[in-house]
């Protein structure tokens, strides 16, 4: 915006009380009611399938297929959750957690080094690198699955948690670097210059000055990798086949074939997968939003 900001326009003086007639109040109440109804409809569509799945997961097996269906289970039970744990779902939960945490640590480590260089050091090829990173962010994963499986199989990394964690790291590094690059660039450079004058090397400056100041940036980037790795299904279902290496989403997909029309355990496993994500999302909402636009719009 080049034109000078004229400042906030003078607001028209508040309407005199005489205007607040009964019909004015009624119209206002009507608008509010309409707005509330619209909000309720939006929420019902967005959350309906999840709540319905939750309700199903709590119904005894005999009532799941009852017609007409009960929206709220009258005799809630945890039998499906118990069944999942007796058949060992915790192993898959553990696999998912391990892979996700390793991917977060790797991508934050590699990502903060690269982001620091991009934000603070001068070198040739920097612009090309930045464009490469943005291009990599938009590569759709399903389109590279076949070649990636071909490669991982030929080097023996397919069907291993290591291979999966490395893939997740490589796939999420571009967005991590991008978020941290923006964050590091917004820090005051004077502190780093002071550290340099005091004899800190670049890596010491990064470790002792930049990273301690970058908590929110690291949290945002880390959460992004965490939910990606925890949620991922397409990469894992292609790369993983052994029981011991299966992550939670692959196990859930397996249940779809195994339990067939038995939706009790299926919906229960679905709830186990999404409850942690929803909790983390509600706690750290604003961090998610910064990553979603991928920095494509100054917000």
């Amino acid at each position, binding site marked *: 915006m080049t034109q000078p900001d004229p400042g906030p326009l003078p607001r028209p003086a508040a309407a005199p009380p005489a205007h607040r007639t009964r019909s004015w109040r009624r119209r206002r109440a009507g608008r509010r009611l309409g707005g509330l109804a619209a909000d309720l409809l939006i929420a019902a569509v967005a959350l309906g399938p999840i709540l319905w799945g939750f309700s199903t997961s709590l119904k005894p097996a005999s009532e799941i297929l009852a017609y007409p269906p009960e929206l709220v289970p009258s005799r809630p039970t945890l039998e499906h959750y118990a069944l999942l744990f007796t058949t060992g779902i915790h192993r898959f939960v553990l696999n998912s957690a391990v892979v996700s945490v390793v991917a977060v640590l790797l991508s934050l480590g590699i990502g903060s080094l690269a982001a620091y260089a991009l934000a603070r050091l001068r070198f040739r090829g920097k612009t090309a690198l930045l464009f490469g990173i943005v291009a990599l962010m938009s590569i759709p994963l399903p389109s590279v699955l076949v070649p990636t499986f071909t490669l991982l199989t030929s080097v023996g990394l397919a069907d291993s948690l290591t291979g999966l964690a490395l893939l997740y790291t490589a796939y999420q590094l571009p967005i991590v670097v991008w978020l941290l690059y923006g964050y*590091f660039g917004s820090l005051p450079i004077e502190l780093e210059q002071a550290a340099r004058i005091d004899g800190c090397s670049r890596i010491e400056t990064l470790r002792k000055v930049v990273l301690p100041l970058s908590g929110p940036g690291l949290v945002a980037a880390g959460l992004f990798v965490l939910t990606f790795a925890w949620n991922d299904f397409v990469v894992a279902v292609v790369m993983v086949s052994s029981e011991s290496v299966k992550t939670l989403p692959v196990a859930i997909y397996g249940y779809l074939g195994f339990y067939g029309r038995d939706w009790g355990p299926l919906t229960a496993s679905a709830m186990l997968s999404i409850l942690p994500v929803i909790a983390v999302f509600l706690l750290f909402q604003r961090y998610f939003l910064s990553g979603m636009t991928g920095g494509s719009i100054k917000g």
Partner: protein
Amino acid sequence: MSGERAIETKEREGLRRRPKARRSPEAATAWGFVLPLVVAELAFVAAPLALGAWYSLFRVDYFELTEFRGLGNYWTVLTSTMVQQSLVATLLFSAFSLLFTVSLGMALALRLEADTRTNTWMRAIVLVPYVISMLVGSLLLRWIYSRDAGLSGMLLGPFGLADFSLLADPATAMAALVSNAVWRDSAFAMIVLLAGLKAIPGQLYAAARVDGAGPWMRFTRITLPLLRVPILIAVVRLLIHFVNVLTFALVLTGGGPNNATQTTGLAMYRLGFVDFRIGEANALALLVFVFNLLLIGANLALFRRGRSLSP
């Protein structure tokens, strides 16, 4: 930020006087810092594509290259009915999903723009289908649409269609697939468009109001033109997603009935991991990837207009 710029310019002028400084220790440090990133991307994104390109030229019997076929795999893939059908399915799915997702995202963005408490909560609620696992989302929709759940029976019963199965009819199965995309991805469109709306100065609306412009006039004459880049960004990024997405079709409809909802992503998956025709699967993957490169190029061009590359 401007202070930093000034320092950089000064340093750059200094550099110009000493041409040797190009190979400065700083550049060496910088390349050391970005090396792990570059290696990771080369190893897990570039190398697979290169190897896939090589494999696509051969007949492959379970990862053994047996016979050089040149572009034979590409020809087989392009002339196969399965792939051609999948292209039609992908086109239908992408076009309808894009239309509804962007429209709904726009409606949501306009409705939830003001930063009130209610709106903040509503935005979070709309985002829930987007942040949970795609697999689980499609699974839950499959349960809702299945005849067993009894929900579709309850809704369709009054129309005499109590026994109708949504996922068993080609047209309604495609509609179900589109609804999965709209349910999950409208939130993404909303977020991108909200960021764009925030950047429109409020005085423009105030001025238009003073000039007597109604809500529709303000929307078409101010909002839409100024949202052009965010809208295009949403369209391109969603298109990349829809053209390639695998989970929706694999989990919700399984590509059925009669391959009516078998998108190209799913066809590729079946070719590679069900039929194990690795040569042909790689050929199809590369064809799709070349198409993606066009979309990614468009995305990059928009990115340069949406914001500069500096932090």
